[in-house]
């Protein structure tokens, strides 16, 4: 059937709309990028949209990379992301394996107690007091341990583990393989697509999170990058980065430093994103079928 005039007109209109969506989505990032490499005073004099940098100057980046807080924040975040994701993975995988065993005793009771926590939880203050009581306050464990398992992820992983053919496990058992061997040599290698999705979800979660650090960390030496960013972008504390320049200049470069900070902290995600995107989407699909 040939499309009618109206349908064809809608087709073009739709394409324009989608292009508009892309522009609205991407332009803020482009503006930030242009602003960050602009020469500070010409950027301040400029008004309206930027279609390229106003002048060219990388001093803002120099200031960002010389800022000890940002460097420290970067280091801390890398630590939290790697260690945190490792803890998440091990805990989620063993939990999923246990729940995927067909004839585990008390399985239904365990499952019930786990699912209850998805609907009802103690809330911020009791968790805060608990972390305090466990002596984890102001340590990185307060950030890594309380969120060790995302129940939803564990259930997704369990579903994937259940689809591993039973015959494979049985023949391994015949050869005397223990449950540990079966988990690490058979079940996990056969569930790599789901494991990959989990690594990405957990890792991006750790990279982007700031709230638990805000609540549990007192010592700014331990702040992750996002909390440092919050101080710079929202509490406006760029002063420490601009020692030595005259005050007008100082204000001007303070503006471009903010934009450079955004780029420096977001670039890893934006660069990796196009390659990883399909895994994320796959993960949502798995979750959608399950839920």
């Amino acid at each position, binding site marked *: *059937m040939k*499309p009618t005039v*109206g349908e064809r007109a*809608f*087709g073009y209109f*739709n*394409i324009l*709309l*989608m292009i508009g*969506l*892309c522009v609205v*989505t*991407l332009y*803020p990032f482009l*503006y*930030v990028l242009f602003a960050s490499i602009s020469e500070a005073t010409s950027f301040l004099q400029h*008004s*309206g*949209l930027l279609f390229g940098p106003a002048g060219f100057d990388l001093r803002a980046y120099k200031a960002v990379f010389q800022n000890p807080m940002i460097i420290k924040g970067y280091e801390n975040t890398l630590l939290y992301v790697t260690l945190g994701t490792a803890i998440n993975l091990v*805990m989620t995988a063993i939990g999923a394996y246990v729940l995927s065993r067909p004839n*585990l*005793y008390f399985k239904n009771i*365990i499952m019930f*107690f*786990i699912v209850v926590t998805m609907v*009802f*939880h*103690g*809330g*911020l*203050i*009791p*968790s*805060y007091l*608990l972390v305090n009581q*466990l002596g984890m306050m102001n340590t990185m464990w307060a950030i890594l*341990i309380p969120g*060790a398992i995302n129940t939803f992820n564990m259930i997704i992983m369990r579903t994937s583990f259940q689809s591993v053919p039973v015959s494979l496990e049985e023949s391994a058992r015949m050869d005397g393989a223990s*449950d*540990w061997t079966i988990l690490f040599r058979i079940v996990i290698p056969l569930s790599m697509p789901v494991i990959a999705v989990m690594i990405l979800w957990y890792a*991006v979660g750790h990279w982007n*999170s*700031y*709230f638990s650090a*805000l*609540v549990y960390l007192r010592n700014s030496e331990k702040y992750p990058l996002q*909390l440092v*960013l*919050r101080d*710079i*972008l*929202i509490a406006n504390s760029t002063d420490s980065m601009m020692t030595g320049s005259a005050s007008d200049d100082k204000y001007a470069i303070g503006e471009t430093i*903010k*934009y450079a900070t*955004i780029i420096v902290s*977001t670039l890893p995600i934006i660069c990796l994103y196009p390659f990883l995107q399909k895994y*994320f989407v796959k993960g*949502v699909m798995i979750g*959608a079928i399950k*839920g």
Partner: protein
Amino acid sequence: MSRSTGNWAALQTIRADLRRHWAVYVMALPVIAYYVIFHYGPMYGLQIAFKDFQPAKGIWGSPWVGFKHFVSFFNGIYFWRLIKNTILINVYELLFGFPAAIVLALLLNEVRNGVFKRVVQTVSYLPHFISIVVVAGMMFDFLGRTGLINQIIGAFGIEPIDFLKEAGWFRFLYVSSGVWQGVGWGSIIYLAAIATIDPTLYEAARMDGASRWKQTLHVTIPGIMPTIVILFILQMGNMLSVGSEKVLLLYNPLTYSTADVISTYVYRKGVLEASYSFTAAVGLFNSVVSFILIVSANSISKRLSENKLW
């Protein structure tokens, strides 16, 4: 007699199973410990909502005070403001954010060119991965007195507006930035639902001479209706909760009148001002109401249609 032998036999099988699969039970231990400590621990701690918590006496030893903290929250000057702000942000999200994702999925479904479609999808998912701190930081830069938006409206002779310092703008900014960040990602689940619609339904509709618009109206939308209903139920269940993470970044005392929600109030009073029992009560009230909301939304939907969460 037979009952006790039955128990004995069951015990024997459990012991045999423990011997054979001891590793599974060892694996279960840290997982169970995690849930007991970090999920049931806070639930146990919730009792301080009915006590006057004194750190020196601990959770168990602090004296009971009944509903004192609930009463003082309900009678407090901020109660209605917090309820109103929390609900209004959710209502705005339901009115704008919720349909936006559905509309985007339907529009993407009409894009014929596969490569173009993938590019649009990739671009529209991107903001979902940007941290909320960066999004808020960009909002501060763009919406400040001398920011980009004021430069643009200034060109039309409009006086600069300090958007983030004016209470009247807060809800609009909160919800619209949320749509900007989440619309693409939110559309994935509807696209997945569209992909599962039986293609013969479209063929039959075409046979009957249905235009693309009619096909969308009578095949696609009914096809994704269960998904829409389930997400709607979830959203209703969240009617009385707005996450504190983004509000904490965007609000300030000047905008508290529209921006302060229950979760941010709990953070301020509890973590910053150490009124633990009072804020535990506020949090418990919030959880209980949310629980009631989601259960009723589910049963209403069960009555009206076949769709339900459980």
